[in-house]
């Protein structure tokens, strides 16, 4: 695939992520903060997000396996995940966290378990999509081109 095709593919892919609600305006804000002096800003922040989210999802799984469920602790973790998802524009994950918190407040274990599964699912989708997008960007750069804004 030539450079122009790659660039077009990237723009289309990115657009689809917004249209399908995976990403929101906040992701655009992140891109606007990237420049020649900070060329890897977006990848760095998103990598931090991946690490942090995986840690939180593990904590959530463990917390929901306990004999006695600590809803306050679970809510604190979900609050964090909601915050970081919002900060990078991971809209679907963020929205699910809102639902999750409602179940925590209602102390509904079944609801929480279901939500956790959904959050894990949405998270893994957005992670895959962002990684694909970053790979496309790398291909473009390697081909000597610039990443379209």
């Amino acid at each position: 695939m030539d450079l122009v095709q790659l660039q077009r593919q990237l723009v289309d892919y990115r657009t689809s992520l917004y249209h399908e609600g995976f990403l929101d305006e906040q992701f655009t804000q992140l891109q606007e903060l990237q420049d020649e002096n900070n060329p890897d800003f977006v990848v760095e922040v998103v990598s931090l997000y991946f690490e942090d989210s995986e840690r939180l999802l593990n904590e959530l799984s463990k917390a929901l396996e306990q004999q006695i469920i600590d809803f306050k602790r679970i809510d604190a973790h979900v609050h964090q995940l909601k915050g970081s998802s919002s900060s990078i524009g991971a809209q679907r994950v963020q929205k699910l966290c809102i639902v999750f918190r409602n179940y925590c407040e209602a102390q509904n274990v079944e609801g929480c378990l279901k939500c956790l599964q959904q959050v894990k699912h949405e998270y893994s989708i957005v992670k895959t999509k962002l990684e694909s997008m970053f790979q496309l960007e790398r291909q473009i750069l390697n081909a000597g081109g610039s990443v379209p804004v």
Partner: protein
Amino acid sequence: MEMAVDKTQFHVLAVDDSLIDRKLIERLLKTSSFQVTVVDSGSKALEFLGLNDDEHEQRDSNSDEDQDHQDLGVNLIITDYCMPGMTGYDLLKRIKKSSCFRDIPVVIMSSENIPSRINRCLEDGAEEFLLKPVQLSDVNKLRPHLMKARSNERLFDQH
């Protein structure tokens, strides 16, 4: 009124327990040409300023004579509200109690839009309350507060 020639860079102390949000606020502030120090808790913020967590200040609070605090040159503090241990609100109260630092503008950030929370912070001395995720346009709103604080400083500085 003629302003004396001065460095126009402002130093912002940012406080947030979230690693991602720290990275974000740092980039936002640096993009807006602020000098930035980022810490992950209210107690670290107080430590940076040279204040104790408790009611008593470490140094003598004669602010016109004690230049040590001024040399840190913190011109604004921007803090997350929801933090474990000391909340952003607790930090705000602590700063406003300090004779050395009470004139430093404090801005609070929160992901939750709770009117009673916002009002309480503003009533207790916060200059602005920003909803997360914080944008570049929000950071641009900070400059007037910094300019005002600086010109107030000059107004009372007879040297």
